[in-house]
């Protein structure tokens, strides 16, 4: 429990720091939010009035505390351009990004885990070498290139999947998966190469542990040793990196979101930056940072589930 308390304190501190920094940064950026809200034809008196209304004349720390108070009650302001409340926009867009990421991680893990297991079982063998080469090849291709090639093959030539668009999961789950398949695959291609390599490397070192020799000496089949004894302790790096990727991609999948015309969080932040609409940027950053920190927290918790030794070490400490 002490561990959880410590982690939660850390989590809150990081969140405060991130939100304050992003607030500061957005305020330092060139461009005047009052000008955006008031319009181009606004005169000086109108500008001053807008600034006063928005509280832009207060010092930055005061404005930050005001923003934080509102944000804690769920009010993150609204866009200066289309007047849509930021919390509504996030509610609308977060599911799109989350579904996309869940599908892509699912594809990546489902492909990478069996390949990693096979490669590690016969390390240095023909399968290991071929899969290594292919993995590096996949890693070298940027996701936007993969996306365009996939659209060309599966959407334009074969017509199996739609190239752009989105159907909410609640409306039609099958269509939802069909629409998100190509974007999820584009993200998964580079990830599965990384996951496969990580799992393979960790498995090979786990397989050299004494308890594996012990298990083999007991006469357990090598397949069972791999699945029941070696796999679980070898998933640390895999889980860490998969979690970090997930957190990073919540804001970072915007290229894929733009290519496939998905209204995700990343695209929301980028279009807001480009149109100098800073209140949504602040809201988007909070969502991304919260997600990132929470995912890290979950990974730390998962370590204890995977490896009882960590649980004991924490209980003692």
């Amino acid at each position: 429990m002490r561990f959880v308390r410590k982690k939660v304190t850390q989590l809150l501190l990081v969140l405060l720091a991130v939100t304050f920094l992003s607030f500061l940064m957005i305020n330092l950026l060139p461009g005047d939010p009052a000008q955006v809200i008031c319009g181009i034809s606004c005169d000086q008196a109108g500008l001053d009035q807008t600034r006063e209304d928005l509280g832009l004349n207060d010092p930055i720390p005061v404005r930050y505390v005001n923003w934080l108070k509102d944000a804690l009650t769920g009010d993150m302001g609204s866009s200066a351009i289309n007047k849509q409340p930021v919390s509504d926009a996030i509610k609308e867009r977060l599911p799109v990004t989350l579904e996309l990421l869940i599908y892509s991680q699912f594809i990546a893990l489902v492909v990478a885990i069996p390949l990693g297991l096979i490669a590690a079982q016969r390390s240095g063998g023909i399968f290991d070498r071929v899969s290594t080469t292919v993995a590096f090849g996949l890693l070298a291709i940027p996701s936007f290139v993969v996306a365009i090639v996939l659209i060309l093959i599966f959407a334009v030539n074969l017509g199996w999947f739609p190239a752009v668009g989105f159907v909410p999961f609640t409306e039609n789950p099958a269509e939802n998966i069909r629409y998100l398949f190509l974007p999820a695959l584009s993200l998964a291609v580079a990830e599965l190469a990384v996951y496969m390599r990580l799992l393979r490397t960790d498995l090979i070192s786990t397989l050299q542990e004494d308890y594996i020799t012990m298990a083999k000496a007991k006469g357990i089949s090598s397949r069972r040793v791999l699945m029941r004894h070696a796999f679980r302790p070898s998933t640390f790096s895999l889980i860490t990196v998969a979690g970090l990727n997930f957190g990073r991609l919540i804001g970072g999948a915007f290229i894929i979101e733009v290519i496939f015309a998905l209204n995700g969080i990343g695209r929301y932040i980028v279009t807001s930056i480009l149109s100098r609409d800073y209140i949504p940027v602040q809201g988007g950053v909070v969502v991304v940072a919260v997600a990132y920190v929470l995912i890290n927290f979950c990974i730390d918790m998962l370590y204890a589930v995977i490896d009882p030794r960590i649980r004991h070490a924490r209980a003692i400490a």
Partner: protein
Amino acid sequence: MPAPSPEFGGESQAPGSEYFPESDFLESGSMATELVGPGGIADGQVRELEGLHILDPDQVPADAIKKRLGLGFYISAGWVALVAIMAALAPYLPFLKNPSKVSSCLKCSASSAHWFGTDALGRDIFSRIVWGGRVSLTVGVTSIIFGLIFGGIIGLVAGFIRGRTEGFLMGCMDVLLAFPALLLALAIITFSGNNTVWVISLAIGVGAIAPIARLVRASTLITGGKEFVLASRTLGASQARIIVREILPNVVLPVLSFAIIGVAVAIVAEGGLPSWACPSLRPPPPGAA
């Protein structure tokens, strides 16, 4: 991992001592003693010395030497060298055309005049790729060097000094990691008001600081617990000397291999920036010289 004993915690260092570590405990007669004498030597020579130390056979794992470099290595290395040389010599290569010069040949396919064909404005695609490669390579290498300098120092200090300093530095790194890297990059580019290669390198390099700092810290923790560091400390070596002579050479190898992959990641990241922010993707106006 054992924490460093407290008596080393508050030891203050004379300015510049990291460049002129006390030579008293070097094996007498070694080249290092002669070079790092009290008389002092130029910075460049110290770096060369460090280079020698890294390449010291004892520092390289035995199997790394035995392992032959296969055909794949030479093909890859040759390709990288070809790309780098072409990019470096682009202004002097006779077969390259002006990348922004338009010709009457629009959307031509590959020919002897245009090796990769031409684009919609009639510009030679091969020349544009080579010139674009200059930008990509510069951004990739510069941004990682930037990340290495800051991340390396932070990681070394955090991993070696431990305690509150480590907690604070790594907390800062957590904040940096939680911050969306893309937003940070866009903010730096927008704030600086221009999109030169250096600004973009800086914007991407900031994203490399935290991962590198974490890796350096981890390697420093592992190396710091080894016997030879304890031996050096027992002999009375200063903190700066232990960091530079004992820890750094052992941290450099894993970090360097990470950094080289980082160059590739940075190049892809630069390609992913929106085109208005990215010099290599921004098409010059038609007809520009």
